[in-house]
């Protein structure tokens, strides 16, 4: 059962588990806090509506760029540059969303500052969590492929990294707990003020609680995994998955039970608690003013009125023309300096020769296109399967007695049920077939055309007669081709790669070379 930490597991952590944690822990916290602030300050007009996509985009951007820049071993300055670009984009998004709609330019106002601050916080939190979890990735990366005593020794060698990872995991856990406490505190304030969040807000807060508990559970699991690694036992992925499912089931069961028990009424009145607290305060001679809850309520109402009155207030400053000129000069100077600084910081590095060379080397568009093709392939395949499923389900739904009779007399009736091949198997078959077609084209160039009644073996014999030097390679090609086409199992990736390499090397041989090779071979 116990295997070592594999590269696949590391990839899963790096590309899915850690980014998800670093995105959703702060995202749900910020959204919950936003919802509760809206409830607590209903008079405030500048709470933006489309905060969730902005924060989600910031979190995703941080995770993706974090992974990419980690691969490139980019410095912290690159991350700062990325943050600046992100904030600029967020500003653009807000401009389009709010500025264009209202038909006026955006000034430095809470309408702008609030979402930008939230975006900044989301990015910073995500960055903090992601960087912390990166330490774990580094540690596990150094332990890949090891088990038993070798694993123990390796962990001992990386003891500094191990200690750092535990510390970081504890910090992240503490952060998640602080998020939870803050939301509960805001909820208490809402309860004191008798304010009820909307359904969407309640949903976000519930999700925040559930995801927070799950996150804490996962972080505990990571710590336990490290302890086990110290004993030379790597935690298998199956067990880890089982534990996560168990966590989820506990949370789901509890949430289902609790949702029925929660209501908008308390068993005891709040005044009883206040009376009890007063009694306690009098026992300890604690100077608690009477009616502190009411005072808090009044203060909040005053603040609310203040915010309501804010847009109406139009201050009219009286300043001299010289001062106005100075201010205008300073504003322009600041704008120019800011623009120059941004150009030097953001645009200038993109024009450097190093960067251009690196881009040429990396070929990002080609890579993007390749990934897009894979994605499109998956999408098309999924869509086709979905259509097929839809067609079948419809046929099943409208099947009549007559159809059944027809189906019974149809050609398929009475056949032995063959095992349906998996998608991966069919992809493999397709690859192998395409490669074999390349071989047949090569054969045509050599003067050995493929005829439809020939079996692959017969055709390879003919090719071997024409190119005796490549007979061994051709035998291997046919062997793999037949195994892939006439079996139900997946052939090992290494064999397929060798098969493709062999065909590629054969098809590169020009007819003259093959003749020479044929002559030189005994």
């Amino acid at each position, binding site marked *: *059962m*116990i295997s070592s930490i594999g590269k696949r597991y590391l990839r899963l952590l790096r590309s899915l588990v850690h980014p998800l944690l670093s995105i959703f822990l702060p995202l749900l916290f910020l959204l919950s806090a936003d919802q509760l602030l809206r409830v607590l300050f209903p008079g405030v007009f500048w709470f933006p509506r489309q905060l969730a996509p902005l924060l989600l985009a910031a979190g995703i951007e941080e995770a993706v760029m974090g992974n990419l820049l980690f691969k490139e071993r980019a410095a912290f300055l690159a991350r700062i540059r990325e943050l600046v670009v992100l904030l600029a984009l967020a500003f653009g998004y807000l401009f389009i969303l709010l500025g264009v709609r209202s038909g006026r330019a955006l000034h430095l106002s809470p309408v702008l500052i609030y979402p930008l601050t939230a975006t900044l916080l989301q990015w910073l939190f995500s960055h903090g969590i992601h960087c912390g979890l990166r330490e774990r990735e580094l540690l596990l990366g150094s332990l890949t492929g090891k088990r*038993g005593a070798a694993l123990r020794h390796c962990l001992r060698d990386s003891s500094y990294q191990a200690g750092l990872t535990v510390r970081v995991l504890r910090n992240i856990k503490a952060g998640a707990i602080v998020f939870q406490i803050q*939301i*509960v505190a805001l*909820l*208490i304030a*809402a*309860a*004191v003020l008798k304010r*009820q*969040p909307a359904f969407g*807000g*309640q949903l976000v*807060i*519930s999700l925040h*609680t*559930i995801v927070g*508990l799950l996150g*804490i*559970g996962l*972080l*505990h*699991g990571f*710590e*336990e995994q490290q302890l*086990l690694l110290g*004993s*030379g*036992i790597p*935690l*298998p992925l199956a*067990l880890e998955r*089982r*534990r996560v499912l*168990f*966590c989820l089931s*506990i*949370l789901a*069961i*509890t*949430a289902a*039970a*609790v*949702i029925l*028990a*929660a*209501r*908008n*009424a*308390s*068993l*005891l*009145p*709040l005044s*009883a*608690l206040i009376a009890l607290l007063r009694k306690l305060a009098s026992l300890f001679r604690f100077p608690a003013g009477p009616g502190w809850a009411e005072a808090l309520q009044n203060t909040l109402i005053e603040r609310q009125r203040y915010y309501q009155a804010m847009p109406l207030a139009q201050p009219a400053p009286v300043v001299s023309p010289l001062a106005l000129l100075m201010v205008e000069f300073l504003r322009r100077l600041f704008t120019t300096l800011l623009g120059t600084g941004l150009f030097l910081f953001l645009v200038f590095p993109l024009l450097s020769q190093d960067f251009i060379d690196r881009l040429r080397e990396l070929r990002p568009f080609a890579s993007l296109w390749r990934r897009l093709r894979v994605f499109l392939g998956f999408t098309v395949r999924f869509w086709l399967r979905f259509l097929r499923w839809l067609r079948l389900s419809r046929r099943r739904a409208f099947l009549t007695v007559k159809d059944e009779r027809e189906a019974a007399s149809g050609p398929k009736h009475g056949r032995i049920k063959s095992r349906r091949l998996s998608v991966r198997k069919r992809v493999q078959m397709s690859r192998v077939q395409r490669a074999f077609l390349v071989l047949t084209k090569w054969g045509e160039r050599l003067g050995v055309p493929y005829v439809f009644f020939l079996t692959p073996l017969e055709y390879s014999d003919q090719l071997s007669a024409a190119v005796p030097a490549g007979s061994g390679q051709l035998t291997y090609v046919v062997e793999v081709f037949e195994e892939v086409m006439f079996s139900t199992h997946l052939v090992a990736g290494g064999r397929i790669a060798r098969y493709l390499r062999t065909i590629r090397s054969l098809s590169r041989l020009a007819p003259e070379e093959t003749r020479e090779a044929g002559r030189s071979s005994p």
Partner: protein
Amino acid sequence: MKAIHLLLLVLLLVLVLFFPLRILQFVVLLYIGVIGLSYLYSRIIPRYVTVRRENKVLRTHRFEPLEIALIVENRSFLPAAYLNVVDEQNTFFASEPGNFLIKLRPGERKILSYSLESQNRGQYTVGPAVIQGSDPLGFFPFRARSAESQTLIVYPEVLPLSLLSSEGLPAGTIRVENPVYEDVTRYRTLREYLPGDSLRRVNWKASAKTGQLFVMDYLPLLHAPVLILLNLNSQDYPMRFRYHRIERAATLAASLVVHFLSLRQEIGLIASARLEGGEAVPVAEIRGTHGHATILLEMLGKMEPAQGGPDFSELPFTSGIELPVRTRVEVITPVLGQLDISRLRQLRGKGCTVELFILGEQLEAARELCGREFSVFSVQDFGSDLIYR
């Protein structure tokens, strides 16, 4: 449950009881539910997951691997997502540590096994096993120790010996060539009469049938009770290689026990040593059963060198052990003084055969002193060839 958990629980209960807000109650009840379920889980699982062992006592020889099996059973109705079972091994060297990571479904039973190898003879305790784990969310880690442990007796290493048996009592089980020890109850064959054969051995029926004299031939079989006299007095061993030679002496004694057991002889043991937890000199009467051999091996396994005490050569006379005539006394010692030799001569005078196994550098001195009277063997310090003449 720690004080902080209790405080948190009280706070959460206050929130549920006094604050009339659905979402707050949902959040707080979720905390209470999850923490409560986790707590219950971490209390139930260690109580109902048991670790048992098939045998209470295990026996093995030194340097031989031994399989230890643990039966882990989940008797609760809850699944255990993963548990870490660690079996404590004391001073043993385990090829794979007794450290397992398992998952258990409700009511599932698993057998975990690992092998270990002891470098030292003696009596040891393996276990108890420790179960470590936590609830799925990891709020309440637990660590439970199973009550069961296992006693492990490690016998000395046993090596093959080739010892000739030439003296003893007739009608035994050791096959010899000397016709003196012919056992008239064990017929072997008929052979032609030779001058000097007793007329009582003539087979008259066969002779009458063939017209030639034929005599009965019987198997010569020897019986030699054995007494192993082991000197484990640590003062008699030189400081250099003391531990190693004491272990070598124990190995030789165990090898002699197994050797003579395979020849189906009666074996006894006297050693100038002390058993674990006792001060009495280990003495075993001369007997010939398998159970007796096991007792001897266990004694050899548990023996520790004596600090001072009586001379080993004095023990056959003072221990009260009964020595039958023609007993083969196998003396294992690093040194041999004049007094020892005179006592061994006394034993020979009682009809015993004495063979000396000398450890270390005193071999030549022993040969000079009594090489003509007793068979003297040298005990090799290393290797699987334990003795040579």
